[in-house]
């Protein structure tokens, strides 16, 4: 156990220093493994692990869902999503912020990336909110927080990675993400309502749309809704495997982009495909590193030592999950979501199994916690994405603006914790 803790400490130091996360985890994993079993065993393990992970069929869902997100992003569909949400909510106080939350949810339903959701929605809803004199903190906070829905509402890349690491069914995890995702949408809307109730000037009502414009706006999101139902419905009905669903989703997203006048040239295709493959490669470098590191951690016996420690401390399943969630919150201040899932989950996996924790439910808990990490300082990736797209808004205002949503995520976390059915009801129907 000591050697594993030393490994973690060295890894965190290297990451703080600025070493590339994938390379650092891989090298620390190899050195740690070599310390326990010798260099030749460590080298062989690393080579085999990298090659096997690179050829893992289940992981092929990642590039295809990333590609689906890139196509949707390129199709500039976010304007329609925002207009459709505005058609229903725009005329209420805080209506543009409410519309932003709903549009973020819609975008998340076809794009598994929080950063892409935040970046896209900043371009779309920030100018509209500026026009209606929304406070900078409410406008930017709503977008940064709405973006976090990207990793909860399926298809979600972090849920796929969690599924691979914890050996859980990805289809079940996607199903489990739906109700908590909708719950968070409702909580975010309540957060907006509270802010505008306390400070009505922060979010005035928008102008109502004409019935014709409303109809047109609602009609335009039909294809998105169809794609979401096709992908999720296919998995839910066991018609496709998640990998097949991701392929169908990517083709569907490409068709939507084509129908909207995008992806009409070789260069547009090349841009989209390269963007997706590049994101995939950077992500897989971290996956390789983390899985090599996990081999070292497993060999050190740390995950099994933790079982005894949990036993000795007399921790119940609930207390154990609370403890892991607490560590994940701390880690969320340093690592991004993928890092948390890859480093934390394997360590506690045996203890969680031993305590009979429902791993689907736990996956949702961990993803909600990582959502927090996306908007809390010092990293708060979504906050920085909003800042980069809207450079005139002070960083302090964005961080101020996300506070009501942090509270909303905490409420969501507590609700899912106290009522696990929120997460496990839909998967339960499939099991």
């Amino acid at each position: 156990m000591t050697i594993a803790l030393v490994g973690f400490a060295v890894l965190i130091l290297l990451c703080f220093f600025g070493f590339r996360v994938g390379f650092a985890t891989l090298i620390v994993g190899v050195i740690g493994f070599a310390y326990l079993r010798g260099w030749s065993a460590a080298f062989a393990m690393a080579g085999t692990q990298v090659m096997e992970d690179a050829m893992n069929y289940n992981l092929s869902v990642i590039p295809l869902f990333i590609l689906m997100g890139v196509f949707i992003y390129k199709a500039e569909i976010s304007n329609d999503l925002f207009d459709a949400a505005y058609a229903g909510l725009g005329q209420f106080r805080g209506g543009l912020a409410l519309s932003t939350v709903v549009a973020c949810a819609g975008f998340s339903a076809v794009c598994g990336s929080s950063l892409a959701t935040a970046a896209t929605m900043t371009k779309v809803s920030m100018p509209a909110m500026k026009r209606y004199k929304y406070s900078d903190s409410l406008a930017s906070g709503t977008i940064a927080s709405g973006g976090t829905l990207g990793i909860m509402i399926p298809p979600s890349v972090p849920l796929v990675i969690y599924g691979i690491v914890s050996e859980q069914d990805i289809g079940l995890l996607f199903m489990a993400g739906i109700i908590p995702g909708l719950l968070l949408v409702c909580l975010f809307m309540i957060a907006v309502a509270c802010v505008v109730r306390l400070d009505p000037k922060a979010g005035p009502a928008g102008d109502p749309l004409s019935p014709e414009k409303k109809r047109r706006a609602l009609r335009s999101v039909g294809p998105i809704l169809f794609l979401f139902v096709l992908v999720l419905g296919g998995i839910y009905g066991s018609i496709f495997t998640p990998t097949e669903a991701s392929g169908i989703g990517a083709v569907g997203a490409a068709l939507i982009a084509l129908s909207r006048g995008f992806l009409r040239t070789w260069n547009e295709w090349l841009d989209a495909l390269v963007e997706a493959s590049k994101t995939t490669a950077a992500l897989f470098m971290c996956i390789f590193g983390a899985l090599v590191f996990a081999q070292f951690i497993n060999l050190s016996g740390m995950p099994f030592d933790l079982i005894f420690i949990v036993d000795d401390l007399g921790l119940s399943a609930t207390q154990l999950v609370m403890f892991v969630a607490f560590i994940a919150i701390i880690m969320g201040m340093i690592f991004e979501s993928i890092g948390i899932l890859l480093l934390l989950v394997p360590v506690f996996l045996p203890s969680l199994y031993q305590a009979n924790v429902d791993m689907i439910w736990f996956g949702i808990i961990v993803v909600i916690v990582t959502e927090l990490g996306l908007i809390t300082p010092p990293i708060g990736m979504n906050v920085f994405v909003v800042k980069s797209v809207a450079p005139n808004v002070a960083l302090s205002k964005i961080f101020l603006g996300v506070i009501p949503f942090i509270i909303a995520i905490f409420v969501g976390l507590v609700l899912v914790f106290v009522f696990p059915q929120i997460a496990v009801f839909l998967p339960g129907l499939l099991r």
Partner: protein
Amino acid sequence: MESFIKYLLPRIVYLVKILSAVLLFIMMALTFIDVLGRYLFNAPIYGSAEMIQFLLALTIFSALGIVNADDSHIVVEVFEERIRKFIPNLHGYLIQGFSVLAMAFISWQLYIFAEDSYHLGSMTTVLEWPLIIVTGSVAFLSILSLICLICGLFVKNLYKKAEDNKTSSGSN
């Protein structure tokens, strides 16, 4: 040497861009056609899952060349900026040296893996293709991405040096 690297890097990067894009496109199309074939014509593509596995590995390692060339790997940025300001040169050399070392290690191990699969005459499970086709290509792409990393860092340092010279001549 400088001009050779400046000539070489964009060409390798363009090549791996095209390659990764084509591979990813085939992966998407193959998945889609397989499902269509199965449900509409009752004729799924034989060994499609295995082909997707190979395409995944090839896509990752071809795109790794692009990631390495512009050093766009995932980084924890909490203290990096501050440390870099404090020890700019040492920080740069350490980070870059470590990345090259790690990438060289990965390439070396993948080469050994490929060599083993060649000597053992390993075949893929379903399609019964020689495994060396995939493992060899992955090892080759990994070495190519190592070259991209080294050339990318070289070019980056050249630009940095030029920037520094500009700044110092400006201040003079």
